[in-house]
């Protein structure tokens, strides 16, 4: 009897609306070019047609990111369209270009969340990391405007050696600025992050784990602020695993659209050209989603073909090996283990209670 193939919904589109940014962050994972000019290279009509078509594949949400998405000239018009389509929208921005008019438009088009990067409570450290003097003040002003308008904001912080002592300050700042959540990301070695790793800007495993436990278990959380420390599941305590939160690579249910209209598995196509798969101007999203060999292979092979410690981890069906784009960018292989988990294992610190082997009879 033929078995029915599992279907994969395209639940979210990640739209990289520009390939440029008005900041020059030392850790950026996709290295957009530096520019302060408005851009409209992504053709709005094709974009709208693609989004409408994707609804038949299960599309529910759209993440607008970049480069800096506020440099996209057609953003207000695109947001109105997404609202009319009834899609849930989130935006990732550096916050420096947020002004009352566009924030008011966020509100009227029911944008669910605006994530804004703040890497330190210290102006000097933030500006150093972001590569542009004055960015701290502009970003904070943007966050204040969001809060005043009642738009839900999330603060994102990328943890590295330079700002590792800034966590308490950023938590306080997040509370003062009325953010709904704070997401603490670890540095990843792609794009400019690769050079950051080469310089030794990344934190060692022990320091990451120490900070994680400090934040998740010891630091007093402000009442109205959710704090998400984004580390793979195996780093997390059993209590925080139970609490849930983001942990999985959504690679099987997302598609990226780059600033030139190319499809990619996410934003990684910006730095790894072989992961591009057609263009919104001349390819249908249904055809790409259903027929692209890279996507088909990922669906068949995750998590069964994961290698290294990821193959032996009890969380592999949940996290699918962490960020697969990162694995590919580092090694040219989607199935190599997540670099942090493998380092933990190589250091002899991967918990045996989170491994599948050895199997014993129950």
């Amino acid at each position, binding site marked *: 009897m033929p078995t029915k193939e599992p279907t994969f919904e395209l639940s979210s589109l990640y739209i990289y609306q520009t390939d440029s940014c008005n900041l020059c962050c030392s850790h950026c994972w996709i290295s957009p070019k530096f520019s302060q000019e408005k851009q409209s290279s992504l053709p709005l009509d094709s974009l709208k047609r693609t989004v409408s078509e994707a609804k038949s594949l299960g599309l529910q949400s759209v993440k607008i990111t970049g480069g800096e998405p506020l440099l996209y000239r057609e953003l207000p018009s695109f947001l109105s369209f997404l609202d009319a389509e009834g899609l849930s929208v989130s935006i990732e921005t550096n916050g420096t270009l947020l002004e009352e008019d566009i924030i008011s438009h966020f509100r009227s088009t029911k944008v669910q969340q605006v994530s804004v990067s703040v890497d330190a409570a210290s102006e000097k450290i933030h500006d150093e990391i972001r590569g542009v003097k004055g960015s701290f003040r502009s970003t904070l002003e943007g966050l204040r405007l969001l809060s005043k308008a009642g738009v839900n904001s999330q603060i994102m912080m990328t943890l590295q050696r330079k700002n590792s002592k800034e966590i308490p300050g950023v938590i306080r700042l997040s509370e003062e600025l009325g953010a709904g959540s704070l997401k603490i990301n670890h540095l990843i070695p792609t794009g400019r992050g690769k050079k950051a790793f080469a310089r030794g800007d990344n934190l060692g495993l022990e320091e990451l784990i120490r900070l994680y436990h400090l934040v998740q278990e010891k630091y007093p959380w402000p009442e109205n602020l959710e704090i998400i420390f984004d580390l793979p599941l195996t780093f997390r*305590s*059993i*209590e925080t*695993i*139970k609490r849930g939160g983001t942990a999985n690579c959504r690679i099987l249910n997302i598609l990226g659209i780059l600033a030139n209209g190319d499809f990619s598995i996410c934003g990684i196509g910006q730095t790894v050209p072989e992961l591009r798969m057609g263009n919104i101007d001349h390819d249908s999203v249904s055809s790409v989603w259903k027929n692209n060999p890279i996507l088909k292979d990922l669906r068949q092979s995750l*998590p069964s073909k994961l290698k290294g410690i990821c193959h032996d981890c*009890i*969380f*592999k*069906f*949940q996290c699918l090996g962490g960020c697969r784009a990162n694995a590919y960018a580092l090694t040219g292989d989607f199935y190599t283990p997540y670099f942090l988990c493998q380092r933990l294992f190589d250091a002899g610190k991967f*918990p045996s*209670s*989170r*491994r*599948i082997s050895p*199997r014993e*009879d*129950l």
Partner: protein
Amino acid sequence: MPDIVLGKMDPTQRYKINKEIVYREEDNGAFLFDPDSGNLKYMNPTGKETFLILKEKGDVGQAISHIHGQYADVDQEQVRKDVKIFLEQLKENGFISPQDNG
């Protein structure tokens, strides 16, 4: 026979742990993992204890008696309901199956 009224649940019912299941214990709970389906269940310390009783020697009634003994201030009926829900979840996820009592 345990002195607990189990409603539709048979107090003498025994369960077997399905063969491929991986059990991993930690200080504050435990995980059950099915390598075939990928199902993963987190168990808090009480769940872990209930599971171990079922695994090692007990039937449902024994598990309930034991848990009630540990938490005497919790209503017996509530313990029964909680154990029932817990067992249903384990069954639905394919971690345990009812065993013939014969």
